[in-house]
């Protein structure tokens, strides 16, 4: 027989071929695309809108009649207060005062302010102590400022306020890294687990073993596809978070999120491999993956911050790779952190991945 001899596609060919086959398989699986990309994105879109800053810092007071400290405020003070204090001015009649006090009682405004002689009176409701206190301290500082100006002396001390990490209080700033971490974890764990189980059941693994290609091409293609998919998730999440509506502000070395996501994906892939190596059916793989990913996401603060959580939860979460990934991503994305925050986490995630992969290797069966 004069068959033409081939030694198989050498080099990168098998890797690229398998990558394309896997990518097509993934993209055509609408359920998978929905659950791994659209579903977490829905959480970002919803939570981002729900937890959006409702503007609680803005206080409203009714000014009854003339109040010198408010009327004669310097321009720059007035401009500085505009974000925190709205003043509604009314005439100084008794009727206006009654009306203003009624508004305070109903909680429509935070306080009423009036001047009798040299005394500035502030009436506020005790219902909302935080708001009442805020209004009180604002008006108090205005009075002190006016007193100081009345002495004709330059102030002995001045305060130079500066904002620190103001952005971190915005929900979008922890929702984006938290939910992104969850999405990446789902993509890697479910992708790897399902792939392994279904390829074993369908005997594709055996078929590939009997083709003249290296095992590294098969593993490399699976890892490569998962990494690319995680980067797509990252791009989409950052794009959505950065929409003016959500207002995610990226800080300096935000691109460090790329090596972080890649290292995190490898760590989660190893979990998926372990699940896929152990589980006998797709259903078992699904249940087990869900059992790992969902609690891990909650305990890692993917959906809400863990600042108020009990001590044991915090201790437990320290063992979860997702927690460290989310925290590091939040650091580089929104808190201006850099290599110092990212490198130890990248190292830890890779180490975790190596250990779990070894474990998966021991558990793995061909059929």
């Amino acid at each position, binding site marked *: *027989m004069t068959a033409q001899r*081939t030694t198989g*596609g050498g080099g990168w060919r*098998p890797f690229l071929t398998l990558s*394309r086959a896997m990518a097509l*398989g993934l993209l055509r699986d609408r359920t998978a695309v929905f659950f791994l990309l659209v579903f977490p994105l829905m959480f970002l879109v919803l939570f981002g809108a729900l937890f959006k800053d409702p503007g609680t810092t803005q206080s409203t007071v009714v000014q009854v009649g003339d109040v010198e400290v408010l009327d004669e405020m310097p321009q720059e003070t007035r401009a500085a207060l505009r974000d925190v204090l709205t003043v509604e001015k009314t005439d100084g009649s008794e009727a206006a005062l009654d009306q203003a006090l009624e508004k305070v009682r109903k909680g429509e405004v935070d306080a009423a302010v009036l001047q009798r002689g040299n005394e500035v009176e502030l009436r506020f409701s005790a219902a909302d102590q935080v708001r009442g206190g805020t209004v009180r301290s604002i008006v108090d500082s205005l009075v002190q400022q006016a007193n100081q100006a009345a002495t004709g002396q330059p102030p002995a001390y001045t305060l130079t306020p500066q904002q620190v990490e103001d952005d971190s209080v915005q929900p979008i700033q922890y929702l984006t890294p938290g939910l992104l971490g969850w999405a990446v974890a789902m993509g890697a764990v479910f992708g790897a687990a399902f792939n392994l189980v279904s390829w074993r059941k*369908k*005997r*594709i693994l055996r078929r590939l073993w*009997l083709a003249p290609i290296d095992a590294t091409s098969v593993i490399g293609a699976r890892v490569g596809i998962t990494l690319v998919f995680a980067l797509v998730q990252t791009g989409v999440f950052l794009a959505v978070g950065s929409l003016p509506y959500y207002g995610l502000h990226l800080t300096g070395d935000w691109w460090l999120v790329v090596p972080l996501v890649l290292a995190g994906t490898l760590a989660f892939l190893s979990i998926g491999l372990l699940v896929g190596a152990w589980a006998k059916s797709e259903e078992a793989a699904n249940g087990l993956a869900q059992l790992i990913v969902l609690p891990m996401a909650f305990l890692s603060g993917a959906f809400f911050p863990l600042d108020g959580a009990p001590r044991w939860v915090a201790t437990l979460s320290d063992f979860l790779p997702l927690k460290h990934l989310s925290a590091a991503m939040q650091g580089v994305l929104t808190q201006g952190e850099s290599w110092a925050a990212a490198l130890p986490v990248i190292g830890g995630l890779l180490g975790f991945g190596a250990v779990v992969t070894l474990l998966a290797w021991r558990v793995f069966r061909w059929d």
Partner: protein
Amino acid sequence: MTTQAAITVEGLRKRYGDVRAVDGVSFEVARGEFYGILGPNGAGKTTTLEMVEGLRRPDEGSALLLGQPSWPRAKRLLSRIGVQLQASAFFEKLTAREQIHTFAELYGVPRAQADAMLERVGLTDKADVRQDDLSGGQEQRLSIACALVHDPELVFLDEPTTGLDPQARRNLWDLLRGIQAEGRTVVLTTHYMDEAETLCDRVAVMDHGRILRVGPPRELISELGVASLEDVFLQLTGREYRE
């Protein structure tokens, strides 16, 4: 080179715990021969075939394919053999054409050759249909086409006609005869004795991890004085139910 046997198997043994799945199997398949391996479920056919193909490491014994050992895995040898596992060994969500193109690229074969193979098994008009939307017969033909895409000298077919209607089986037989007529060696496992009788030059009947009898179907029939290969099979392996 041409006088060398396509397959030489000597003293294969495989044990799982206390179970001797394969217990000293030896046989030889000549070049260009159509060889059938028959046996009830649990007879050790699958394990034997897996060791011969190089999927499993034998505890003892050796299998030479085209003069080269099949274990450890050698890529040069793999590009000369074609394996059709049971029908489902396909990539997910790919069309018939994409499946065979993927296999063609893995073997370093031009796509035109893959398209020609698709034409040969009569699937050109189904080329853009997803594999899971194909009928059972079409799936089997695609599976065989994928096993043959790199023009192998030696082909293993694992129950290629299971679950097919009589029309599809007859058409597949024609295809398989054509494959042999081109000079390839074909090894077939099947539960259909009529299939083995019409297609195979020689059959090996296995049970309990051993080969009980080897020979051309007609000779086995006359040797045992029965009417058909099915009778031969039942006489050799008994009538009790298997797992």
